[in-house]
């Protein structure tokens, strides 16, 4: 059988799509709308609380998993969509999409480990 990296790419895409589907609506609502608009108290996003969340190993792992998987999901889908939109240079699109997702994932790991 021909070797292919498709299963890995696709399972990351599927895992990210699942994570995004389950947690992003609530996360976007809490951090981007409810707290800034005053529907939830400001201390929801207080420095000490977020520091405690990102400071403990479990919190770090969960945050990294959400960021990494959602980014791969977005990168893979964007790569396919660029092709559908008539950008035919598959190699450039692939490098750009997975490259940005990869660099941002490394940045996430570095930032989380520094907290």
């Amino acid at each position: 059988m021909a070797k292919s990296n498709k299963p890995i790419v696709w399972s990351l895409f599927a895992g990210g799509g699942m994570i995004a589907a389950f947690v992003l609506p609530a996360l976007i609502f809490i951090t981007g709308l409810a707290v800034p608009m005053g529907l939830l108290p400001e201390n929801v996003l207080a420095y000490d609380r977020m520091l405690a969340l990102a400071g403990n190993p479990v919190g770090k792992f969960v945050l990294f998993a959400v960021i990494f998987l959602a980014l791969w999901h977005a990168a893979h889908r964007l790569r396919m969509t660029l092709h559908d939109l008539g950008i035919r240079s598959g190699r450039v699109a692939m490098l750009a999409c997975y490259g940005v997702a990869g660099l941002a994932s490394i940045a996430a790991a570095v930032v989380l480990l520094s907290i």
Partner: protein
Amino acid sequence: MGEVMDRRPYVRQMPKSWWLGQRRYTFYMVRELTCVFIGAYVFVLLFGLFRLSQGPDAYGAFVDALQNPFAIMFHLLALAFALFHTVTWFGLTPKAMPLRLGGKTVSGMAIILAHYALWLVVSAGLLLMARV
């Protein structure tokens, strides 16, 4: 010597706006473009963590900036696209992971509803955690 054969594969030209003509194509493209907002929000999250790592002042400035009308507008759009992603993603689950239990195929609707039920639990859990 005969004619040189062109061995490049034939690629039919498509207008860039092919997905605007038909509803189902537009729906497909909107579904695919949810990834732009999902990606953008993850970058907001990442930037927030970066500011958190820089200390209380930097992080406070980040939280204040979330009140900017443009930030609110972005998050409204991001929420709409994220919800669209959730609905379309759950809608595909019976096709992506058909399930057999005790020799019987579980109906697609049951699989979809199970995802919605879990989604409600997860979302309620996140909101509760935010309040505690």
